[in-house]
């Protein structure tokens, strides 16, 4: 039970990191798209 509770706490702690990765990926794709647009004539 203690192990399970520790795991749950650990998993919850990681959620903001996962959200950051997803947002980061979206921003990188948008940045690449803007880069592409800036140099495509």
């Amino acid at each position, binding site marked *: 039970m203690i192990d399970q509770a520790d*795991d749950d706490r650990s998993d919850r702690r990681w959620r903001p990191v996962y959200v950051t990765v997803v947002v980061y990926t979206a921003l990188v794709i948008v940045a690449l798209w803007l880069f592409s647009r800036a140099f*495509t004539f």
Partner: protein
Amino acid sequence: MRFLDWAVVVAYLIYVIVDGVRMTKHSKKVEGYFLANRSLPWWAVGLSVMATQLSAITLVGTTGQGYADGMRFIQFYFGLPLAMVILCVTAVPFFYRAKVFTAYEYLEKRFDAKTRSLTSFFFLLSRGLSCGVIIAAPSVILSIVLGLSEPATIFAMGLSTTIYTMIGGVQAVTWTDVKQMVVIFIGLSVCMFIILSKFPMDVSFGDALSLAGSTGRLTTVDTRFDLNETYTLWSGLIGGLFLMLAYFGCDQSQVQRYLTAKSVDEGRTSLLMSAFVKIPMQFFILLIGVMVFVFYQFERPPMIFHRVEAERVERGARGEDFGALNGEYERAHEARRQAAENYLGAVNGGGDPTETRAAYVAADGKFNELRGRGVAFVKEASGNRSFNDVNYVFPTFILQNMPAGVVGLMIAAIFAAAMSSVAAELNALATASVIDFYRRHFKPDATDEHYVMAGRAATGFWGLFACVVALYATSLGSLIEVVNKFGSFFYGSLLGVFVLAVAVPRARARGAFWGLLFGIVSVWIASRFTQIAFLWFNVIGCLVVVAVGYLLSLTVRDDAAIVQEA
């Protein structure tokens, strides 16, 4: 290559072998040899994960692709960060807490020994063969650019890697990976700096981007949904997601990397390192290829980068025709250079560059048409239908334009990229052979020392096997295609088995076993009878395994408790 370059390459090879062999003292027990006693810090594991993925053919092929086709290839990696998040939630804690040595060991806890053995067997089959191809691809290129025989480069790369992997185990693999990534980063940074310094005085980095952009080489996101197009936003996000889930979640060569981390959290952090770094790193490597393209606007590039093949055609019966085509190519280069200068003059002069840009794009089109004719000429003259010299662009550029010492550093970086991938694969192949087959089916009660010796013998066997495969693979034509085919046949289906194990409580052993076989057959049918791009094979394989596995599991009437987590 000059003396200084040879000295750098030889010093690098000796250092890597000695450094790897030094790790023997940490590898006396089975847990130390295969899992580094689960003691490694996240940054070392993270760099090892990246080094394993970055093979020499990726390094050389990606820069060549940047030169010839631009940056569209970057979309291949769009699914990677999302895959890492999913794996941090699922695979990392599952495998780590199950205290397994291989990913397939977990499948026995969840299903049965038969499913474990079958998936491990498919891993050994696909990785054993592809390991040979991973050695062969850079060996062929290096043998031509260095003027050595193919067996010499194959055995220099294959055997030196086998020696330190065999003796030092996973510790040697990880710590040499860290150093090899440093060599690769330094090599690429120096390379970019030198390329930019070799532009004509009046050509800035912004001008270089304008030239590359005019030819469409800076297009990085293609939003079309076309199943037959290899690199689009959607194939990268969806197909790439499935591929990366399969590669990092089911391929022992990657799973073993994060099983060596100190804790679940360190394992997660090591994967998230790739999530943040991989796309920018690939962007940088592709940009080097694009900058090589810009460099060759002002310096004449060879029509055929595969020097040996070009010389053979020149000496052949149609050598005169080839020479005439080469002359035409040279004139087209001169016209393109002039058009590029006119275009940049208009851009920097503040005028309207529309006309000069159109003239430059037309000149580039003419130039590409002539290069295409040159490649077609070699294909016809040599009888090699799959001839493609894109992978020779970067090594040729390095040898012809880099100063003494830097050439050696770059060749060492190519060796490093190859050896880091091969070492991780040999180590994973040995682990799966010993843990999933030898210990499981033949000798379950031996001592730690015995399994370490078995691990060393298995590493030696797979190293020799990969070198022999590499000798044959050099005659297979497009090597990167061969690697992709090997991978795509198995990855999606293997992922399907793990999805059944982790996410489908009703799944039973019979469903997983037959689902896997159905998945591989369905991918074979898709590759044989459709034009669907290979990234989608991973989606097809995974979905078929999950669907067939689930349906077959419904026919199983046992009420046995399912082990949700080992």
